[in-house]
Protein backbone atom coordinates (compact mmCIF):
# COMPACT_ATOMS: atom_id res chain seq x y z
CA UNK A 1 0.00 0.00 0.00
CA UNK A 2 2.77 2.37 1.02
CA UNK A 3 4.81 1.50 -2.09
CA UNK A 4 1.84 2.23 -4.38
CA UNK A 5 1.33 5.56 -2.68
CA UNK A 6 5.05 6.35 -3.05
CA UNK A 7 5.00 5.48 -6.77
CA UNK A 8 1.99 7.77 -7.28
CA UNK A 9 3.79 10.66 -5.54
CA UNK A 10 6.93 10.13 -7.65
CA UNK A 11 4.88 9.96 -10.88
CA UNK A 12 3.00 13.12 -9.95
CA UNK A 13 6.29 14.90 -9.18
CA UNK A 14 7.76 13.84 -12.53
CA UNK A 15 4.64 15.04 -14.39
CA UNK A 16 4.80 18.42 -12.61
CA UNK A 17 8.53 18.76 -13.39
CA UNK A 18 8.09 17.86 -17.07
CA UNK A 19 5.15 20.22 -17.60
CA UNK A 20 6.92 23.09 -15.79
CA UNK A 21 10.02 22.54 -17.96
CA UNK A 22 7.89 22.78 -21.09
CA UNK A 23 6.44 26.08 -19.92
CA UNK A 24 9.96 27.46 -19.43
CA UNK A 25 10.96 26.46 -22.96
CA UNK A 26 8.06 28.48 -24.33
CA UNK A 27 9.28 31.63 -22.57
CA UNK A 28 12.81 31.45 -24.03
CA UNK A 29 13.63 34.12 -26.62
CA UNK A 30 13.39 32.80 -30.12
CA UNK A 31 15.76 33.76 -32.87
CA UNK A 32 14.86 35.96 -35.80
CA UNK A 33 14.26 33.15 -38.25
CA UNK A 34 11.44 31.61 -36.18
CA UNK A 35 9.66 34.75 -35.01
CA UNK A 36 7.31 35.18 -37.92
CA UNK A 37 7.09 38.76 -39.15
CA UNK A 38 9.16 40.17 -36.30
CA UNK A 39 12.76 40.61 -37.50
CA UNK A 40 15.80 42.39 -36.20
CA UNK A 41 18.90 43.53 -38.06
CA UNK A 42 22.09 44.94 -36.57
CA UNK A 43 24.51 47.23 -38.34
CA UNK A 44 27.71 48.94 -37.28
CA UNK A 45 29.58 51.94 -38.67
CA UNK A 46 32.86 49.98 -38.28
CA UNK A 47 33.74 46.32 -38.52
CA UNK A 48 36.97 46.75 -36.55
CA UNK A 49 38.20 49.31 -34.05
CA UNK A 50 41.27 49.91 -31.92
CA UNK A 51 41.35 49.53 -28.15
CA UNK A 52 40.09 52.75 -26.60
CA UNK A 53 37.79 53.64 -29.50
CA UNK A 54 34.11 53.13 -30.27
CA UNK A 55 31.77 51.71 -32.89
CA UNK A 56 28.13 52.75 -33.27
CA UNK A 57 25.71 49.83 -33.49
CA UNK A 58 22.17 50.32 -34.73
CA UNK A 59 19.30 47.87 -34.35
CA UNK A 60 16.47 47.93 -36.87
CA UNK A 61 13.33 46.02 -35.91
CA UNK A 62 10.42 45.40 -38.27
CA UNK A 63 7.12 43.58 -38.02
CA UNK A 64 6.86 44.21 -34.27
CA UNK A 65 3.63 44.74 -32.35
CA UNK A 66 3.70 48.03 -30.42
CA UNK A 67 6.78 49.41 -28.71
CA UNK A 68 10.07 47.52 -28.97
CA UNK A 69 12.53 47.32 -26.08
CA UNK A 70 16.19 46.46 -26.66
CA UNK A 71 18.62 44.62 -24.37
CA UNK A 72 22.33 44.60 -25.14
CA UNK A 73 25.32 42.57 -24.02
CA UNK A 74 28.85 41.84 -25.21
CA UNK A 75 30.95 38.73 -24.66
CA UNK A 76 34.12 40.59 -23.59
CA UNK A 77 35.00 43.21 -20.97
CA UNK A 78 34.18 46.00 -23.44
CA UNK A 79 31.40 48.37 -22.43
CA UNK A 80 28.19 49.24 -24.19
CA UNK A 81 27.27 52.87 -23.72
CA UNK A 82 23.88 54.39 -24.44
CA UNK A 83 20.58 52.54 -24.63
CA UNK A 84 17.64 51.89 -26.93
CA UNK A 85 18.03 50.99 -30.60
CA UNK A 86 21.41 52.73 -31.03
CA UNK A 87 24.38 52.09 -28.73
CA UNK A 88 28.17 52.35 -28.80
CA UNK A 89 30.62 49.55 -28.27
CA UNK A 90 33.50 51.07 -26.31
CA UNK A 91 36.65 48.93 -26.17
CA UNK A 92 37.41 50.26 -22.72
CA UNK A 93 40.14 47.83 -21.67
CA UNK A 94 43.32 46.27 -23.09
CA UNK A 95 41.78 42.84 -22.50
CA UNK A 96 38.95 43.67 -24.93
CA UNK A 97 40.99 42.74 -28.02
CA UNK A 98 39.77 40.09 -30.42
CA UNK A 99 36.27 39.44 -31.74
CA UNK A 100 33.65 41.25 -29.68
CA UNK A 101 30.28 39.66 -30.20
CA UNK A 102 27.46 42.06 -29.40
CA UNK A 103 24.06 40.49 -28.74
CA UNK A 104 20.83 42.45 -29.05
CA UNK A 105 17.48 41.13 -27.88
CA UNK A 106 14.41 43.00 -29.09
CA UNK A 107 11.05 42.41 -27.45
CA UNK A 108 7.72 43.80 -28.65
CA UNK A 109 4.49 44.58 -26.81
CA UNK A 110 3.26 40.98 -27.31
CA UNK A 111 6.43 39.61 -25.66
CA UNK A 112 7.76 38.28 -28.97
CA UNK A 113 11.55 38.24 -28.89
CA UNK A 114 14.24 38.29 -31.53
CA UNK A 115 17.94 37.84 -30.85
CA UNK A 116 20.61 38.96 -33.29
CA UNK A 117 24.40 39.18 -32.99
CA UNK A 118 27.08 41.23 -34.67
CA UNK A 119 30.84 40.82 -34.35
CA UNK A 120 33.26 43.73 -34.22
CA UNK A 121 36.98 43.06 -34.07
CA UNK A 122 39.01 45.04 -31.54
CA UNK A 123 42.70 45.42 -32.40
Amino acid sequence: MKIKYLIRVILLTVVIMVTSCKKKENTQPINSSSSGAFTLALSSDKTSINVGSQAVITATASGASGNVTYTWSVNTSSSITGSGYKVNLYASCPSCTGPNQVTCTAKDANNNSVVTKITITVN
Partner: protein
Amino acid sequence: MCRLFFSCIFFVLISLKSFSQCCTANPVAGSVNIGVLTKNTFRTISFYRYSYSDTYFNGSEKSNLNFLKYSYYNFAGTILSYGITNRLTAEMQLGYYINRTEIFNTDPIYTQKGWGFSNSVASLKYAFTKKGTFELTGGLGFKFPFTQKQLTIDGVQLPQTAQPSTGAFGAVIQVFMQKSYLEKGLRFFLIHRTEINGTNIIAYRTGNSYTTTFYISKSINYKWTGIVQIRNENRAKDIRDDEKIPISGGYEIFFSPQINYSVTQKFNISFLADIPVYKYYNGTQLASKYAIVVSLTKDFDLSKSK
Protein backbone atom coordinates in the same frame (compact mmCIF):
# COMPACT_ATOMS: atom_id res chain seq x y z
CA MET B 1 22.72 25.35 19.16
CA CYS B 2 24.39 23.92 16.05
CA ARG B 3 21.01 22.90 14.72
CA LEU B 4 19.69 26.38 15.36
CA PHE B 5 22.64 27.90 13.50
CA PHE B 6 22.32 25.67 10.46
CA SER B 7 18.57 26.27 10.45
CA CYS B 8 19.27 30.00 10.40
CA ILE B 9 21.77 29.62 7.54
CA PHE B 10 19.25 27.54 5.62
CA PHE B 11 16.56 30.13 6.24
CA VAL B 12 18.84 32.94 5.07
CA LEU B 13 19.75 31.00 1.92
CA ILE B 14 16.09 30.37 1.16
CA SER B 15 15.34 34.06 1.78
CA LEU B 16 18.19 35.11 -0.49
CA LYS B 17 16.88 32.91 -3.23
CA SER B 18 13.49 34.52 -3.06
CA PHE B 19 15.14 37.96 -2.92
CA SER B 20 16.95 37.14 -6.12
CA GLN B 21 13.66 36.86 -7.97
CA CYS B 22 13.11 40.59 -7.71
CA CYS B 23 16.41 42.26 -6.93
CA THR B 24 19.80 42.72 -8.48
CA ALA B 25 23.00 41.56 -6.85
CA ASN B 26 26.98 41.27 -6.96
CA PRO B 27 30.92 40.83 -5.29
CA VAL B 28 32.24 40.40 -1.73
CA ALA B 29 34.74 42.78 -0.31
CA GLY B 30 37.62 41.36 1.68
CA SER B 31 36.80 41.71 5.31
CA VAL B 32 39.01 41.82 8.33
CA ASN B 33 38.61 38.38 9.81
CA ILE B 34 39.50 37.75 13.37
CA GLY B 35 39.70 34.64 15.49
CA VAL B 36 37.00 32.78 17.31
CA LEU B 37 34.70 34.39 19.85
CA THR B 38 34.00 33.19 23.36
CA LYS B 39 30.85 31.12 23.81
CA ASN B 40 27.56 33.03 23.47
CA THR B 41 29.24 36.22 22.29
CA PHE B 42 27.50 37.84 19.34
CA ARG B 43 29.59 40.34 17.38
CA THR B 44 28.48 42.76 14.68
CA ILE B 45 30.99 44.55 12.49
CA SER B 46 29.50 47.20 10.22
CA PHE B 47 31.81 48.90 7.79
CA TYR B 48 31.85 51.37 4.96
CA ARG B 49 34.56 51.39 2.31
CA TYR B 50 35.38 53.96 -0.37
CA SER B 51 37.89 53.02 -3.05
CA TYR B 52 39.32 55.15 -5.88
CA SER B 53 41.41 54.31 -8.98
CA ASP B 54 42.58 56.53 -11.81
CA THR B 55 45.89 55.16 -13.10
CA TYR B 56 46.75 52.24 -15.35
CA PHE B 57 49.72 49.99 -14.67
CA ASN B 58 51.46 47.66 -17.09
CA GLY B 59 53.17 45.04 -14.96
CA SER B 60 54.61 47.15 -12.16
CA GLU B 61 55.09 50.27 -14.31
CA LYS B 62 52.74 53.20 -14.69
CA SER B 63 51.04 53.30 -18.09
CA ASN B 64 49.75 56.25 -20.13
CA LEU B 65 46.49 54.53 -21.03
CA ASN B 66 43.44 56.53 -20.04
CA PHE B 67 40.40 54.63 -21.29
CA LEU B 68 38.78 55.31 -17.95
CA LYS B 69 39.20 58.76 -16.38
CA TYR B 70 38.66 57.20 -12.99
CA SER B 71 36.58 54.64 -11.16
CA TYR B 72 35.39 54.38 -7.58
CA TYR B 73 33.02 52.48 -5.38
CA ASN B 74 31.14 52.91 -2.12
CA PHE B 75 30.56 49.68 -0.29
CA ALA B 76 28.72 48.97 2.95
CA GLY B 77 29.07 45.64 4.67
CA THR B 78 28.32 43.80 7.83
CA ILE B 79 29.83 40.73 9.48
CA LEU B 80 27.77 38.87 12.06
CA SER B 81 29.60 36.36 14.26
CA TYR B 82 28.42 34.10 17.03
CA GLY B 83 30.48 32.02 19.43
CA ILE B 84 28.79 28.60 19.42
CA THR B 85 31.45 27.25 21.75
CA ASN B 86 34.74 28.72 22.93
CA ARG B 87 36.39 27.08 19.93
CA LEU B 88 33.70 27.27 17.25
CA THR B 89 32.37 30.50 15.74
CA ALA B 90 29.78 30.93 13.02
CA GLU B 91 30.05 33.94 10.75
CA MET B 92 27.96 35.60 8.06
CA GLN B 93 29.34 38.31 5.80
CA LEU B 94 26.98 40.52 3.82
CA GLY B 95 27.76 43.48 1.60
CA TYR B 96 26.15 45.99 -0.70
CA TYR B 97 27.67 48.20 -3.40
CA ILE B 98 26.03 51.59 -3.03
CA ASN B 99 27.67 52.30 -6.36
CA ARG B 100 30.43 50.87 -8.51
CA THR B 101 31.17 53.62 -10.96
CA GLU B 102 33.40 53.96 -14.02
CA ILE B 103 33.87 57.29 -15.78
CA PHE B 104 34.86 56.70 -19.42
CA ASN B 105 37.26 58.99 -21.20
CA THR B 106 34.91 59.40 -24.15
CA ASP B 107 33.52 62.48 -25.84
CA PRO B 108 31.09 63.19 -24.26
CA ILE B 109 32.22 61.64 -20.98
CA TYR B 110 30.11 58.60 -20.13
CA THR B 111 29.37 57.29 -16.66
CA GLN B 112 28.65 53.61 -16.09
CA LYS B 113 27.27 52.67 -12.71
CA GLY B 114 26.37 49.39 -11.10
CA TRP B 115 25.01 48.71 -7.62
CA GLY B 116 23.52 45.93 -5.56
CA PHE B 117 24.31 43.11 -3.21
CA SER B 118 27.76 41.63 -3.28
CA ASN B 119 28.51 37.93 -2.73
CA SER B 120 27.95 36.80 0.83
CA VAL B 121 29.91 34.28 2.85
CA ALA B 122 28.57 31.93 5.54
CA SER B 123 31.43 30.30 7.41
CA LEU B 124 32.49 28.33 10.43
CA LYS B 125 35.78 28.97 12.24
CA TYR B 126 37.37 26.51 14.61
CA ALA B 127 40.24 27.20 17.01
CA PHE B 128 42.69 24.30 16.79
CA THR B 129 44.81 25.85 19.50
CA LYS B 130 43.73 28.44 22.00
CA LYS B 131 46.24 28.51 24.81
CA GLY B 132 46.65 31.68 26.83
CA THR B 133 48.08 34.27 24.48
CA PHE B 134 48.29 32.09 21.37
CA GLU B 135 45.52 31.12 18.98
CA LEU B 136 45.48 29.14 15.75
CA THR B 137 42.15 29.06 13.94
CA GLY B 138 40.97 27.65 10.63
CA GLY B 139 37.79 28.51 8.80
CA LEU B 140 35.75 27.23 5.90
CA GLY B 141 33.03 29.24 4.21
CA PHE B 142 30.45 29.03 1.49
CA LYS B 143 30.40 32.02 -0.86
CA PHE B 144 27.15 32.74 -2.65
CA PRO B 145 25.61 35.49 -4.78
CA PHE B 146 22.25 37.09 -3.96
CA THR B 147 21.34 36.49 -7.57
CA GLN B 148 22.99 34.80 -10.53
CA LYS B 149 21.40 37.29 -12.94
CA GLN B 150 23.73 39.83 -14.50
CA LEU B 151 22.94 43.43 -13.62
CA THR B 152 21.37 45.19 -16.62
CA ILE B 153 20.79 48.94 -16.53
CA ASP B 154 18.68 50.70 -19.20
CA GLY B 155 18.74 47.56 -21.31
CA VAL B 156 22.54 47.20 -21.21
CA GLN B 157 24.23 44.35 -19.38
CA LEU B 158 27.12 45.82 -17.40
CA PRO B 159 30.64 44.39 -17.76
CA GLN B 160 32.06 42.31 -14.92
CA THR B 161 34.01 45.33 -13.61
CA ALA B 162 30.74 47.09 -12.80
CA GLN B 163 28.73 44.09 -11.60
CA PRO B 164 28.20 44.08 -7.82
CA SER B 165 28.91 40.34 -7.49
CA THR B 166 30.69 37.54 -9.30
CA GLY B 167 27.25 35.97 -9.87
CA ALA B 168 28.77 32.62 -8.95
CA PHE B 169 29.10 30.32 -5.97
CA GLY B 170 32.44 29.72 -4.34
CA ALA B 171 34.34 28.82 -1.19
CA VAL B 172 36.48 30.64 1.34
CA ILE B 173 39.31 29.09 3.33
CA GLN B 174 40.86 31.01 6.19
CA VAL B 175 43.74 30.50 8.59
CA PHE B 176 44.26 32.82 11.51
CA MET B 177 47.16 32.99 13.95
CA GLN B 178 47.49 35.37 16.87
CA LYS B 179 50.14 35.94 19.56
CA SER B 180 49.65 38.50 22.32
CA TYR B 181 52.10 40.12 24.72
CA LEU B 182 49.63 41.56 27.18
CA GLU B 183 52.19 43.24 29.45
CA LYS B 184 53.47 45.28 26.46
CA GLY B 185 50.03 45.81 24.93
CA LEU B 186 51.25 44.15 21.75
CA ARG B 187 49.44 41.69 19.50
CA PHE B 188 50.56 40.05 16.28
CA PHE B 189 48.16 38.53 13.78
CA LEU B 190 48.73 36.54 10.65
CA ILE B 191 45.70 35.85 8.48
CA HIS B 192 45.44 34.00 5.21
CA ARG B 193 42.29 33.93 3.13
CA THR B 194 41.77 31.98 -0.08
CA GLU B 195 38.68 32.72 -2.14
CA ILE B 196 37.73 30.16 -4.77
CA ASN B 197 35.26 31.43 -7.35
CA GLY B 198 32.95 29.41 -9.53
CA THR B 199 31.72 30.15 -13.04
CA ASN B 200 28.66 32.34 -13.50
CA ILE B 201 25.81 31.99 -15.98
CA ILE B 202 27.65 33.89 -18.73
CA ALA B 203 30.60 31.45 -18.46
CA TYR B 204 32.78 34.02 -16.66
CA ARG B 205 34.90 32.97 -13.73
CA THR B 206 36.55 35.60 -11.56
CA GLY B 207 40.09 34.53 -10.68
CA ASN B 208 40.70 32.96 -7.29
CA SER B 209 42.27 35.30 -4.76
CA TYR B 210 44.88 34.60 -2.10
CA THR B 211 45.28 37.24 0.58
CA THR B 212 47.83 37.14 3.38
CA THR B 213 47.85 39.86 6.02
CA PHE B 214 50.22 40.60 8.88
CA TYR B 215 48.99 42.90 11.62
CA ILE B 216 50.78 44.53 14.54
CA SER B 217 48.48 46.03 17.13
CA LYS B 218 49.72 48.25 19.98
CA SER B 219 47.61 49.71 22.76
CA ILE B 220 48.33 53.43 23.08
CA ASN B 221 46.16 53.82 26.16
CA TYR B 222 42.98 52.17 27.41
CA LYS B 223 40.90 53.92 24.72
CA TRP B 224 43.15 54.02 21.66
CA THR B 225 44.91 51.26 19.74
CA GLY B 226 47.18 51.69 16.74
CA ILE B 227 47.28 48.93 14.12
CA VAL B 228 49.59 48.52 11.16
CA GLN B 229 48.67 46.05 8.44
CA ILE B 230 50.78 44.71 5.57
CA ARG B 231 48.66 42.81 3.10
CA ASN B 232 49.50 40.83 0.00
CA GLU B 233 46.64 40.20 -2.44
CA ASN B 234 47.28 37.77 -5.24
CA ARG B 235 44.59 37.21 -7.86
CA ALA B 236 44.64 34.54 -10.54
CA LYS B 237 43.56 35.25 -14.10
CA ASP B 238 39.86 35.42 -14.89
CA ILE B 239 38.42 32.79 -17.20
CA ARG B 240 35.84 33.35 -19.92
CA ASP B 241 34.40 30.46 -21.95
CA ASP B 242 37.06 28.12 -20.48
CA GLU B 243 39.89 30.36 -21.68
CA LYS B 244 42.12 32.38 -19.39
CA ILE B 245 42.03 36.12 -19.99
CA PRO B 246 45.72 37.03 -20.32
CA ILE B 247 45.19 40.63 -19.21
CA SER B 248 43.70 39.94 -15.80
CA GLY B 249 44.94 39.08 -12.34
CA GLY B 250 48.12 40.15 -10.61
CA TYR B 251 49.19 41.04 -7.12
CA GLU B 252 49.28 44.01 -4.84
CA ILE B 253 50.93 44.79 -1.52
CA PHE B 254 49.11 47.22 0.72
CA PHE B 255 50.23 49.21 3.73
CA SER B 256 47.25 49.99 5.92
CA PRO B 257 47.54 52.13 9.03
CA GLN B 258 44.56 51.86 11.33
CA ILE B 259 43.44 53.57 14.48
CA ASN B 260 40.90 52.06 16.84
CA TYR B 261 38.90 53.88 19.53
CA SER B 262 37.11 51.95 22.26
CA VAL B 263 33.93 53.81 23.12
CA THR B 264 33.20 51.16 25.70
CA GLN B 265 34.87 47.82 26.34
CA LYS B 266 32.54 46.21 23.82
CA PHE B 267 32.05 48.97 21.28
CA ASN B 268 34.86 50.09 18.96
CA ILE B 269 35.26 52.48 16.05
CA SER B 270 38.10 52.01 13.54
CA PHE B 271 39.48 54.15 10.74
CA LEU B 272 41.72 52.58 8.14
CA ALA B 273 43.53 53.74 5.00
CA ASP B 274 44.48 51.23 2.31
CA ILE B 275 47.56 52.35 0.40
CA PRO B 276 49.06 50.11 -2.29
CA VAL B 277 52.87 50.18 -2.00
CA TYR B 278 53.60 47.68 -4.74
CA LYS B 279 51.50 46.33 -7.57
CA TYR B 280 52.07 44.02 -10.46
CA TYR B 281 49.39 43.31 -13.03
CA ASN B 282 49.29 40.91 -15.94
CA GLY B 283 49.23 43.30 -18.90
CA THR B 284 47.80 46.79 -18.54
CA GLN B 285 45.06 47.24 -15.96
CA LEU B 286 43.47 49.99 -13.93
CA ALA B 287 45.29 50.03 -10.57
CA SER B 288 44.01 50.64 -7.08
CA LYS B 289 45.00 54.08 -5.78
CA TYR B 290 43.63 54.22 -2.27
CA ALA B 291 40.73 53.18 -0.09
CA ILE B 292 39.39 54.34 3.23
CA VAL B 293 37.36 52.25 5.65
CA VAL B 294 35.31 53.11 8.71
CA SER B 295 34.07 50.26 10.87
CA LEU B 296 31.98 49.86 13.99
CA THR B 297 32.30 46.75 16.12
CA LYS B 298 29.90 45.86 18.88
CA ASP B 299 29.94 42.76 21.08
CA PHE B 300 26.91 41.38 22.89
CA ASP B 301 27.19 38.85 25.70
CA LEU B 302 24.13 36.68 25.11
CA SER B 303 24.84 34.42 28.07
CA LYS B 304 23.95 37.32 30.39
CA SER B 305 20.52 37.72 28.86
CA LYS B 306 19.50 34.18 29.77
